[in-house]
């Protein structure tokens, strides 16, 4: 009591309540800054997926984030009274590093809009894309590559800014679910329309014209316009995902270029990119313009046989026409890699269609004259020449190659594309064959391996809507759309299918055991329910014989490392506050600093309460109430009714704090309960027991330790360790709308990580429904609501009180997404006891089947 009266001395000593109030004011600042820092981090994470690091908006946001983090560290300093002072130094070091990275990125973002192919060196790959860099290398080595030029990724970024593509991407991409074709299709259509309706900026158009002039070609020379995305052809093939425009006259180049850019947003290209885990910002698209080769024959060449990489053979596919897209049938040749290059094996097909250039530009499919259709499209001598050239390229590049070639009117060979060929030598040989009569034998192995699963038959990939996980898909034809289901299926069999086509490249990239040219598989397998494919042995057996390795395959797909800037800014490594390494010196990124400061603030607030209540200071009282939570009240001044100020125990009614009263309405709501249980989950409980065996010592605050509520007239801080989790509400309620806020934090649980994280998502869904901004990292939930009118803020506090009661031990039931969603719906519907009778979900009608718990 004495301490509350202002001291009469000249240097007024601060009253304990004053000091407490000051530190809670620092906490208030800290939580507000934390929310806004998390907002910037989320924005920045999105930006870095779409925008190059050198973009000015990235710098702007990083600077804003650094500013807020500095304020956060400052607030922690005031709250903890200097205990985490070294955090300033840590943040300073990170700030310096980030600044130099931004400067570097800005320097790197410079470069020309376009480059002649003859001037492209290896270091330009990030600007001109993999395909162009590779062709430039071949051309400068004296190999027959047509002359041309590249429009760099800088041009692409300039166009993207002009078209406000980043804005649309941010709006569209979150809506896309790659398993849902219609959502993909809708997003794709909007994005493509946007690209196609935006005029090509004049500087880019000028650059194209200047390059064409520089080539000094004849007026009627036409070009092939093709994509050259960064990252394309190296780790990812993007095979057949982007469009090309062939035989384009010089005045149509800008438009063709725009069409190629638009193909970046085709449904299948988006699906491919998303399923490969590549960010939008990591694969900007340069565009390659090459002199059109007046080709009579064209095709693909593999310098190794992917089905049997150890054999000493090259694979050549050839057909009539200017471009061999891979969809049409062609002749197949197997040619010896050793000198003289004998043709070991030949399949000459009936090639009924070919694409031929149109006089005004573009190409058109036409019927091949009858006398030509059955002729071999390339002679043995030409095959030998192709083989020699291919091996030269293989030596130059140091790896097996997948080449596109053409032979012109004069009989000279041209190389149109060269990319590394994906091979897997380990799986080529099959283990012991099962003693079952195969349903099907023969075909061409595209990717070796074994798989069992349900059989799904369709005319082509386009006809397939939903493909079950691990299915054996049997198609009549292939198309690049198959990329949509390749990551999920067990095996693929195609009646036709080109072993050197785009689909084959994708199959190898996704490591799907596959057979092409399987003849009549769609007919033979009609009515078969499940089958087992041994792609290397070229056999298909009835029934489920092999253990699926689709799962193993999915894990092999590499996750691309984040950019160095993300590493220092947005990535979060400090996740476990109980770990030994949770120290300020372990902070590697700005996000780490934010997390660390926030966590330490919470711990400090707990220890503030412990100090106050253990010292039996006047400000700590026991809350006397019917709700079974062990709460201690800290008065920050003005929070209690005058008559309660001297009592050691207070009733909730004696607390005047506006936000406390609102929160308490929810906590003491008659429908919610803080003790007892009506339901349990066996698997959830087992999970809790398993954690209890090993995890009890690993919490930052002991189980059952005290919980506090600090109150001021317009302020409340509810800081609680409840059961195995932990919850905090920090709120301000006034008549002045702009000073109202709620901060909410929730973490932990007794069950395993999956269930805890699902409960965090449960909270996220409920909170978002009520207008909160939410940031979830694993099982940590941070939510905030700011500047709402007094009534709304009070209403939300009431809701939070109920939500905290309802979500206790809910992690036990969070077995999967579906149950999480059910609980969200139940909470939002006011079914706070989660009674099934209140809303019977489908399939749960059998009330008698409900088991009763007997053995406990």
């Amino acid at each position, binding site marked *: 009591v004495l301490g509350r009266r202002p001291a009469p001395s000249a240097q007024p000593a601060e009253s304990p309540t004053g000091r407490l109030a000051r530190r809670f004011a620092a906490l208030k600042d800290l939580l507000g800054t934390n929310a806004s820092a998390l907002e910037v981090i989320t924005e920045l994470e999105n930006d870095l997926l779409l925008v190059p690091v050198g973009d000015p908006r990235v710098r702007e946001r990083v600077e804003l984030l650094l500013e807020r983090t500095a304020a956060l560290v400052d607030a922690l300093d005031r709250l903890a009274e200097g205990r985490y002072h070294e955090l300033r130094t840590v943040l300073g070091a990170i700030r310096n590093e980030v600044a130099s990275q931004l400067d570097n990125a800005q320097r790197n973002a410079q470069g020309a809009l376009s480059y002649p192919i003859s001037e492209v060196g290896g270091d330009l790959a990030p600007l001109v894309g993999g395909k162009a860099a590779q062709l430039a290398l071949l051309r400068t080595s004296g190999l027959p590559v047509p002359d041309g030029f590249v429009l760099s990724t800088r041009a692409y970024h300039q166009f993207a800014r002009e078209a406000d593509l980043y804005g649309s991407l941010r709006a569209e991409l979150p809506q896309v679910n790659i398993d849902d074709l219609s959502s993909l299709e809708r997003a794709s259509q909007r994005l493509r329309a946007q690209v196609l309706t935006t005029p090509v900026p004049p500087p880019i158009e000028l650059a194209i014209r200047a390059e064409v002039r520089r080539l000094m070609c004849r007026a009627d020379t036409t070009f092939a316009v093709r994509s050259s995305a960064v990252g394309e052809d190296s780790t990812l093939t993007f095979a057949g995902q982007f469009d090309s425009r062939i035989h384009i006259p010089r005045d149509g180049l800008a438009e063709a270029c725009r069409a190629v850019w638009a193909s970046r947003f085709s449904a299948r290209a988006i699906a491919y990119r998303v399923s490969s885990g590549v960010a939008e910002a990591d694969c900007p698209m340069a565009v390659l313009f090459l002199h059109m080769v007046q080709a009579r024959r064209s095709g693909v060449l593999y310098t190794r046989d992917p089905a049997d990489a150890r054999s000493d053979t090259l694979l050549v596919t050839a057909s009539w026409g200017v471009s061999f897209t891979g969809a049409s049938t062609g002749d197949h040749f197997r040619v010896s890699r050793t000198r003289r290059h004998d043709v070991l094996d030949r399949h000459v097909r009936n090639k009924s269609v070919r694409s031929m250039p149109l006089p005004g530009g573009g190409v058109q499919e036409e019927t091949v004259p009858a006398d030509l259709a059955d002729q071999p499209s390339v002679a043995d001598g030409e095959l030998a020449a192709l083989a020699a050239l291919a091996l030269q390229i293989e030596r130059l590049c140091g790896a097996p190659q997948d080449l596109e070639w053409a032979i012109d009117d004069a009989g000279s060979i041209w190389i149109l594309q060269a990319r590394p060929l994906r091979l897997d030598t380990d799986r080529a040989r099959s283990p012991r064959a099962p003693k079952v009569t195969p349903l099907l034998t023969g075909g061409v192995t595209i990717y070796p391996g074994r798989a069992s699963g349900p059989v799904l038959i369709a005319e082509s990939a386009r006809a397939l809507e939903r493909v079950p996980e691990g299915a054996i898909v049997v198609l009549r034809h292939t198309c690049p759309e198959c990329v949509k289901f390749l990551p999920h299926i067990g095996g693929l069999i195609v009646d036709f299918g080109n072993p050197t086509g785009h689909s084959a490249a994708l199959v190898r990239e996704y490591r799907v055991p596959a057979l092409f040219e399987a003849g009549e598989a769609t007919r033979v397998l009609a009515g078969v329910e499940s089958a087992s494919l041994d792609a290397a042995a070229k056999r298909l057996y009835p029934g489920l014989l092999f253990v699926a390795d689709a799962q193993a395959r999915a894990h092999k797909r590499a996750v691309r490392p984040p950019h160095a800037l993300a590493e220092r800014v947005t990535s979060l490594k400090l996740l476990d506050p109980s*770990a030994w390494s949770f120290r300020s010196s372990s902070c590697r990124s700005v996000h780490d600093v934010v997390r660390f400061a926030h966590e330490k603030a919470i711990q400090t607030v707990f220890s503030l309460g412990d100090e106050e209540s253990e010292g039996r200071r006047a400000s700590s009282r026991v809350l006397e109430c019917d709700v079974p939570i062990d709460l201690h009240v800290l008065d920050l001044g003005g929070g209690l009714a005058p008559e309660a100020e001297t009592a050691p125990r207070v009733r909730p009614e004696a607390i005047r704090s506006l936000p406390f009263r609102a929160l308490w309405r929810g906590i003491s709501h008659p429908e919610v309960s*803080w003790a*007892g249980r009506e339901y349990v989950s066996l*698997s959830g409980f087992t999970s809790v027991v398993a954690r209890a065996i090993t995890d009890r010592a690993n919490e930052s605050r002991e189980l059952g330790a005290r919980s506090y509520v600090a109150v001021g007239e317009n302020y409340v801080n509810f800081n609680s360790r409840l059961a195995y989790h932990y919850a905090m509400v920090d709120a301000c309620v006034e008549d002045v709308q702009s000073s109202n806020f709620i901060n909410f934090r929730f973490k932990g649980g007794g069950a395993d990580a999956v269930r805890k994280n699902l409960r965090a998502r449960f909270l996220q869904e409920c909170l978002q429904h009520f207008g909160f901004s939410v940031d979830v990292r694993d099982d940590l939930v941070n939510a905030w609501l700011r500047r709402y009118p007094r009534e709304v803020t009070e209403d939300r506090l009431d809701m939070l009180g109920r939500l905290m009661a309802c979500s206790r031990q809910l992690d036990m039931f969070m077995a999967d997404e579906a149950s999480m969603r059910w609980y969200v719906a139940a909470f939002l519907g006011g079914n706070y006891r989660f009674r099934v009778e209140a809303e019977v979900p489908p399939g749960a009608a059998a009330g008698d089947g409900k088991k*009763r*718990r007997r053995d*406990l």
Partner: protein
Amino acid sequence: LIFGMTIVNALAGFATLGLVVGFMAGLFGVGGGFLLTPLLNILFGVPYNIAVGSDLAQMAGMSTSATIRHGRIGNIDYKLGLLMCAGTAAGVEVGASILEVLKKAGAVTLGHARIPVMNLVMSAIYAALLLWIGTVVLRESRKALAKVRAGGADTIEKNWLVERLSVLRLPPMISLPRSGIASISLWVILGVGFTTGVLAGLLGVGGGFIRMPALIYIIGCPTAVAVGTDLFEIMFSSAYGAFTHATRANVNLVVVLGLLIGSTVGSQIGASLTRRLGGPRLRNVFAYIAYVAVIMVAAKLVIKIAKGGG
């Protein structure tokens, strides 16, 4: 001579075992009991009945001193605690009686060896328990290391109602005012007590790893009450277990003394290291230790059968 050792050797041996197991218990939080009883049998040839009895006596000493040291004996729901104690006492009696029956069941001939039935059954139970613990812990820590796949509508919709069981509402229903529970079936409380009692009486483990989650996740106690009541319970169940085993001549004071000395020191060291070493990987280590113990239990039995004799 004590189990074929001089008294000094025996004391030193038990103290060392107590140190190692206590260290692990301190490090991992719980888990001492699972390892201590079978290891006493495997390493020192202590019969299971004496291992269980002495282990409980040792635990009674440890938990009482821990409770006094922490001064955390407030916040007990005595109504709940005493009811649970009734269940626990019954459970301990049942457990100890089963052990008594096994003790008197004599031996069976396996190969050329005479193996006591008690040895066979207890080895099997411990092996199964340790195997289960190891597997569950390993699975959980793998889950902790894996990320939840975000945003997939493709999760298989299992019939989660099978997952969700109503807590038994068989009368008599009672209320627990201290815990704020309006109505709960007496049988649920007795059941939880009984389960941990059987574990204590038969296997010599404290059962805290089940009791604490059960108090919070099944009975729905407020945490502070759960913590206090759990401490109260562990003291009661180990003391009662020690008493009832003592009346059956299953407690050996040398074993108790050795273990007490060792585990007091060991658990302190373990607890001080746990924050440095914590995390999912440490949990894996615990699982592997459990597996090693299983192998030791099995190996001991196999060797005995192979060697022949009594």
